[in-house]
């Protein structure tokens, strides 16, 4: 426990010191990042130790402010969420040192590090908090510090707007969490997590209400559809290290909270599982469909986070269905798959955001349609981005594959069970995951080919160059981790033992059986990888041998025999995905504007393709407009005239006195 408190304190203190050094951006950056890396290293080693030795620690804390105690504890679930957290904090802070250099003259760098380290420290704190009030305090600090990070470049109107949306949405979410914890506290007589789990029979009558509140409250943070709409606003607005940290780790705190609450509220009802599964399926499909239509690379990645959160929710949903139907296979594969996906998504989404940020910073634009051909100029970024893209599409041998594979595997094992709900959800999981996987492969083919391949579509893409060492180091590190996680599953999966006991509450023997099953499968898969690797190496060597005697000629991309090839002859991102987007236009409702003239000699036309979020367009925008117009009717009260404000106070006082005395 001590290591974690030490790690959080180092991260927090270095943030404050960095803030005091606001006038020396170089020093502030160094201290802020150094503290974050040191703290993360300590915390990472301690979390890995906890997982390896299967330790659970609980420490009742001192009473603070009369309402909650600062109880802390660490178990397998906490340690499991802390590992990606600390990895991403360390990587993105190293990346951030370089990323922030162009901002030195115009932005308070020390304040950035204060909020960045505060975000990291508060996320770690909320994962180890063992008291409802303490948890909520850490949660709020996390939301607020990330708000200040999102609005870092507040000179842009879009950034300010994204910040406001983020702030409002997250506070609506936290309202549900307040209700939920208050209700749990009322039924258990205490806000301690240990009392929650001890008094789970007391919660039982309201467990469904608690589940609903947890799903909404944590779902807002995690980005479940239809609460996802803050992600595509906030993630592009935030500076890249922040969007990497937010997308990779912060939204996972919602998953952590949901899993934590599920361990308190007793045996799951069937409809909980079905609800979460359904939310996951819809989030996954809609997330990837919306991602397909985006032009902004970071916005695309944000929608992709919605998709992956959907996959995670599907896994949890299957797990709950399995628990309810007494099907340990489904439960364990579901939970293991979704937990593993939490970890894997943190790695590859962090990697992709760092890559996208590097591209955006080097070229000065996030618009994919005017990029192109930068692979030759940024080979390291290109290769690491390719690895991340392959991982997120669920391609073997990378880490995205293994977690989805577990969910597939569990579902395939259960399609012959006699329960209708299990069969339907298993089938839906299989088809849904296939669908999502295929679309996300299409989506990332689009990103990679439009941004990195082909030839430059604008002058911006032409001036691109490889980013600095620290930025490259972060991307390479994550890419290596993605590959390693993918191929070392036989070693990793047995470590899920304690974690699965905590999450599912199933018996020892069932988990052991599952783990040995999964391990043999992964060993088999690794053998296939090895075979493929041998074949490819042979083929490569053969090719080299054949080519050694021949002349190899290189020519510009898209030369194709034209005498004057132009970059405009290439596919655009929109045209690349057009068949898919046309097919799904009943959901996407993308605006396509092509003014073709009907004259014999056609004039110049320019087709436009605009994507929109149907939830934003058809639900939230009309809703907020309605609320706004209602509130504006009360605007006359708030006119800013001091005398009349005092008059309000006087009148109130007088009315109260007369009412009391009359």
């Amino acid at each position, binding site marked *: 426990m001590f290591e974690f408190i030490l790690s959080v304190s180092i991260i927090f203190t270095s943030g404050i010191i960095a803030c005091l050094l606001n006038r020396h951006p170089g020093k502030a950056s160094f201290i802020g990042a150094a503290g974050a890396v040191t703290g993360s290293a300590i915390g990472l080693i301690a979390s890995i130790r906890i997982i390896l030795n299967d330790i659970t620690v609980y420490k009742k804390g001192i009473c603070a402010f009369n309402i909650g105690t600062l109880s802390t504890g660490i178990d397998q679930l906490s340690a499991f969420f802390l590992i990606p957290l600390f990895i991403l904090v360390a990587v993105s802070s190293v990346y951030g040192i370089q990323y922030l250099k162009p901002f030195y003259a115009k932005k308070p760098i020390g304040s950035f590090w204060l909020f960045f380290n505060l975000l990291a420290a508060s996320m770690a704190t909320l994962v180890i908090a063992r008291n409802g009030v303490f948890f909520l305090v850490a949660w709020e600090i996390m939301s607020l510090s990330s708000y200040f990070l999102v609005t870092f470049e507040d000179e842009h*109107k879009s950034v300010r707007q994204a910040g406001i949306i983020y702030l409002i949405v997250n506070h609506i979410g936290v309202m549900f969490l307040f209700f939920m914890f208050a209700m749990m506290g009322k039924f258990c007589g205490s806000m301690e997590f240990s009392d929650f789990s001890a008094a789970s029979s007391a919660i039982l009558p309201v467990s469904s209400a608690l589940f609903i509140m947890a799903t909404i409250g944590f779902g807002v943070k995690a980005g479940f559809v239809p609460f996802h709409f803050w992600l595509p606003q906030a993630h592009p607005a935030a500076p890249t290290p922040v969007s990497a940290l937010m997308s990779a780790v912060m939204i996972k705190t919602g998953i952590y909270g949901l899993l934590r609450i599920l361990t308190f509220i007793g045996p799951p009802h069937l409809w909980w599982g079905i609800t979460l599964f359904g939310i996951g399926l819809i989030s996954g499909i809609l997330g990837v469909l919306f991602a397909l239509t985006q032009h902004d690379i970071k916005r695309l990645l944000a929608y992709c986070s919605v998709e992956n959160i959907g996959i995670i929710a599907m896994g949890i949903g299957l797990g709950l269905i399995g628990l309810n139907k007494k099907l340990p296979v489904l439960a364990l594969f579901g939970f293991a798959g979704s937990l593993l996906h939490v970890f894997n998504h943190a790695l590859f989404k962090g990697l992709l955001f760092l890559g996208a940020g590097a591209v955006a910073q080097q070229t000065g634009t996030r618009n994919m349609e005017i990029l192109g051909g930068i692979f030759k100029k940024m080979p390291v970024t290109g290769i690491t981005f390719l690895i991340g893209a392959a991982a997120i599409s669920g391609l073997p041998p990378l880490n995205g594959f293994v977690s989805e594979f577990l969910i597939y595997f569990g579902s395939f094992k259960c399609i012959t069970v006699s329960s209708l709900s299990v069969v339907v959800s298993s089938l839906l999981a299989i088809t849904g995951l296939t669908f999502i996987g295929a679309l996300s492969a299409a989506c990332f083919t689009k990103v990679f080919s439009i941004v990195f391949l082909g030839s430059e579509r604008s002058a911006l893409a032409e001036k691109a160059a490889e980013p600095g060492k620290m930025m490259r180091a972060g991307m390479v590190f994550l890419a290596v981790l993605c590959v390693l996680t993918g191929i070392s599953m036989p070693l990793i999966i047995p470590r899920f033992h304690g974690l699965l006991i905590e999450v599912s509450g199933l018996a020892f023997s069932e988990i052991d059986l599952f783990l040995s099953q999964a391990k043999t499968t992964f060993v088999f898969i690794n053998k296939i990888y090895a075979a493929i690797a041998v074949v490819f190496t042979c083929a490569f060597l053969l090719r080299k041998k054949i080519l050694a005697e021949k002349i190899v000629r290189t020519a510009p991309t898209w030369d194709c025999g034209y005498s004057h090839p132009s970059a405009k002859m290439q596919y655009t991102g929109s045209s690349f995905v057009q068949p898919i987007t046309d097919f799904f236009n009943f959901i996407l409702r993308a605006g396509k504007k092509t003014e073709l003239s009907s004259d014999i000699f056609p004039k110049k036309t320019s087709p436009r393709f605009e994507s929109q979020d149907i939830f934003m367009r058809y639900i939230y925008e009309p809703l907020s407009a309605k609320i706004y117009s209602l509130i504006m009717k009360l605007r006359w009260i708030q006119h800013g005239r001091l005398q009349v404000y005092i008059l309000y106070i006087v009148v109130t006082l007088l009315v109260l006195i007369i009412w009391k005395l009359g």
Partner: protein
Amino acid sequence: MLINILITFLLITNIGAVASSRLTYCIKIVAAQGVVIGILPCLIYGEFALLPIVIAIFTITVKGVIFPLLLGWSLKTAQVAREVEPLVSYPFSIITAVLIFILSFWLGSRLSLPASFCGYLLVPVAFSTIMTGLFLIVSRVKALTQVLGYLIMENGIYAFGVALLREQPLLVELGVLLDMFVAVFVMGIAIFHISREFDHIDTHVLDNLSDRIPADIRPTEET
């Protein structure tokens, strides 16, 4: 008898403060009110004691001398027109003051206070002084008049406290006085700085500092 005369004087100063159109006159009235208020505890306490006298001297010095000097200095350095600039016309102000007085009498009669207080006049007049002060704050434009209104309101609170003198230690009064001293001091300095920054102390114009700017003059932003 003497107490009632003083209380009546307090009432008259209230009406005077509401009716006057000149700032210097207003300051003088508030000073006079401070002196009256200062004498009150000595008379009500009855027997000779050190504490009431110390407080009386302190009150008279602060409210009767220091505050008026401070406000006069503000008035001079801020170089504003010496007119009160009411939002509510003078006749209507006087009518309001009278209505406030009637309301206070009614309130005083409803209020069940400990029996030991002196005379039936003090509590209603204290009430009406508080409300007159609030009325001045609400109905006058200049920042300086608002300080005056605040002072009158404080005088009322002080008088109300004096009415309950036997139940409540005088030290509380001392605390109130100290509080107020700091407040007026800060306000005086604030007024000076506002007028130096904006060339006026009109609270109306200060409204423009709020974020609620009418749409037609809001600076256009980048899209």
